């Protein structure tokens, strides 16, 4: 669907805000804004990728944290081994580490997706959730990589021309990655592949009756979506220089799903707003109470029952 | 007893009923006739509250059925034998009769007397019955709710002639007991003997209502609206 004029305007303003964020942070002497911005960008990447699966293909995966966490652990583990000399130092270069994280997530998703897509409907939700939890337990049990306590990373993956402690520069890296991913997803949405996914979501039986074997396309969407989550995970671990099993916890999967629906399902950019809303709400509520979930829960129920079009739909004047 | 006035209904964007008028009096057998796709089943679904009409009124014993949920309508005393039978396949024959029964004159024993085949198969799962037996079960199930009005939607379609005859005989017996019946069917020959009045609909509109004798007086009517 075409974006409304209002949506285009809001998008422009938001992009300008995000570009100017470090300046604003410096001016208001709130350097934490930069970290917050990076966090939003990283989660937005994962949520936008998930929307390819939920909103475009109609496959509600409840296990997306697995790919997010696998991508994160991939860079974390490579850094450990580069540190103790069992892997060459260049594996901590971003040009290698990040594509490697993407690849790890994609390959794992290829195997798990091939299994999950043998069923549909509610079973698909349960199975994706269960397999993600399997990876969670795996990393909890992997004491060599910190187990429950998680895994620290001494310095960020090296990006040419950027200092390892330069948070502002890293923020821009995340922002560029987000814009790149959104651009990619936009292209996919309008490509032949994207139109096939659209068709599968709307009426899979009909698509089969006109000659489509849907399995391969659903699997491809699953893998692409996981690969994007892998990139987001790698950036997330870089941002906080820390990987923990929490990255793969089922609540993470749930939160990514919430970001997609809150922002606007099937809209490419909507999930960015969903991610921003979640992160900001969390930070805002956390100032008042450590029990911020007690507010978040009812908000979620209300959004599901009352406001289906999400933030992006509301901006566009749809309900 | 049952009265439908100017009923209109649609599936999504496509209207199917444009103006249905129909009456069933106490103790009467009325047949609703018309070719396939003319709106008979949709009319029944509107009566049962399974679908909302867009306009028009449906009343039963003077009560407006608009907005009532299906179970409340059924409890006013309408017993549905749906198109396609829809017996509960995983339940036994006996359980099908008992699951939705309401107290009254009808008991499992009386149903068994009416349809001896169901007695033989009482402990069998309904999925294993033949089409004709499933039809008998669907009728028995509706009777077990002790309805004031029995509604049958295409109860003989696709059945073997012998089974069909058995079902017509059963409806005649029910009529003799004073049971009010609304029967949707295409079988003119059998309905001539059974029905007190007939209503013919075409393309979602009531085209004609009258007695079987009046239908015979205008032979082109049957040919025009019902002919193969």
């Amino acid at each position, binding site marked *: 669907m075409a974006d409304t004029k209002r949506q285009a305007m809001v998008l422009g303003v938001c992009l300008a805000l995000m570009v100017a964020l470090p300046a604003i942070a410096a001016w208001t002497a709130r350097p934490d804004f930069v970290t917050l911005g990076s966090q939003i960008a990283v989660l937005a990447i994962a949520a936008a990728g998930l929307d390819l699966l939920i909103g475009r293909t109609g496959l509600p995966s409840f296990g997306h944290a697995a790919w997010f966490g696998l991508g994160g652990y991939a860079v974390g583990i490579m850094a450990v081994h580069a540190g103790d000399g069992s892997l060459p130092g260049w594996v901590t270069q971003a040009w290698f580490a990040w594509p490697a994280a993407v690849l790890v997530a994609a390959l794992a998703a290829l195997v798990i997706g091939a299994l999950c897509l043998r069923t549909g409907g509610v079973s698909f939700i349960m199975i994706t959730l269960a397999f993600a939890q399997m990876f969670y337990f795996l990393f909890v049990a992997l004491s060599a990589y910190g187990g429950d306590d998680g895994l620290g990373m001494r310095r960020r993956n090296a990006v040419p021309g950027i200092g390892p402690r330069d948070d502002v520069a890293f923020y821009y890296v995340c922002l560029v990655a987000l814009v790149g991913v959104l651009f990619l997803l936009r292209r996919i949405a309008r490509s032949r592949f994207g139109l096939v996914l659209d068709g599968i979501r709307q009426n899979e039986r009909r698509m089969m009756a006109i*000659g489509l074997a849907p399995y391969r396309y659903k699997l491809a969407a699953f893998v692409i979506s996981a690969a994007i989550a892998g990139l987001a995970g790698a950036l997330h671990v870089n941002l906080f220089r820390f990987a923990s099993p929490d990255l793969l916890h089922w609540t993470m999967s749930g939160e990514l799903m919430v970001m997609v629906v809150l922002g606007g399902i099937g809209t490419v950019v909507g999930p960015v707003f969903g991610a921003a809303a979640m992160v900001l709400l969390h930070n805002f509520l956390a100032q008042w109470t450590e029990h911020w979930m007690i507010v978040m829960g009812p908000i979620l129920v209300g959004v599901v029952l009352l406001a289906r079009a999400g933030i992006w739909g509301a901006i566009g004047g749809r309900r | 007893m049952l009265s439908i006035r100017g009923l209109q209904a649609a599936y999504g964007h496509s209207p199917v009923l444009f103006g249905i008028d129909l009456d069933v009096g106490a103790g009467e057998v009325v047949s609703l006739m018309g070719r396939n796709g003319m709106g008979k089943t949709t009319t029944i679904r509107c009566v049962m509250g399974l679908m909302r009409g867009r306009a028009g009124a449906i009343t039963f014993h003077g009560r407006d059925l608009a907005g009532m949920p299906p179970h409340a309508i059924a409890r006013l005393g309408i017993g549905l034998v749906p198109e396609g039978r829809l017996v509960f396949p995983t339940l036994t024959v006996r359980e099908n009769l008992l699951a939705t029964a309401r107290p009254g004159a009808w008991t499992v024993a009386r149903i068994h007397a009416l349809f001896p085949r169901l007695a033989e198969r009482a402990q069998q799962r309904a999925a294993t019955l033949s089409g004709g037996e499933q039809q008998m079960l669907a009728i028995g199930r509706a009777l077990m709710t002790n309805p004031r009005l029995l509604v049958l939607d295409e109860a003989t379609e696709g059945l073997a002639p012998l089974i069909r005859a058995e079902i017509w005989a059963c409806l005649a017996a029910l009529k003799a007991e004073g049971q009010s019946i609304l029967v949707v069917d295409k079988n003119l020959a059998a309905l001539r003997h059974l029905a007190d009045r007939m209503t013919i609909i075409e393309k979602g509109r009531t085209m004609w209502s009258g007695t079987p004798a009046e239908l015979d007086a205008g032979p082109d009517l049957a040919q025009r609206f019902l002919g193969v």
Partner: protein
Amino acid sequence: MTKLLELRGLCKRFGGLVATDALDLVIAPGEIHALIGPNGAGKTTVIGQVAGELRPDAGSIHLAGADITRLSIPARVRAGLTRSFQVTSLLPQSSALENVAIVEQLRQGHSFRFWRDAGGDPARTGPARAMLERVGLAARADIPAEDLAHGEQRQLELAMALATQPRLLLLDEPMAGLGPTESAAMTALLAGLKGQVAMLLVEHDMDAVFALADRVTVLLHGRAIACDTPASIRANPAVRDAYLGEA
């Protein structure tokens, strides 16, 4: 006679119901073959088995001499056998044009193309517009399928099936829910395809059946009780009985 479609001894049971009972049926290339019978006679079950949605319990299905009994639905479509649905089945949010264009796209090969904008690609939309023209929907190309009138949706349904360029079209009640003028238009549309594509037509509208069919098979309890020209079928007392039960 050459055989485009042949069913040999097809059987299908659902629990205690025999839906298809040792059915044999032959359709010649270009023939319009109507399958009629009362509700519950098993017509839709036959369509389901030929289209590949239901697996027969016994018997085989052959398309142009090749056994397709175990082929998947998409593979049957590629072999030239396409169905339309009794209850209209479209991509509701997509435009009429896109509903046909996606068929065109699938026919042209795999869709693992991620980058190029496909929405306005003339390789997709060109043939799709031509097809919409053919079924009389050209003026409605940009309307979402769910907003089309019921008759137009039926036309679009047919356009999607035709766009797969089938050798045999399975039409499951194409007139369902159409008004008299719409039925006539649809009948004319199908008549115009006569000779170009063979059809297995399930339909209750006897005017349409007798206007279109080369041969008619009457199904009762899953068995073919008659298979003949429309004229002979009309005169056949067993057929009258099957419909009206005048035993």
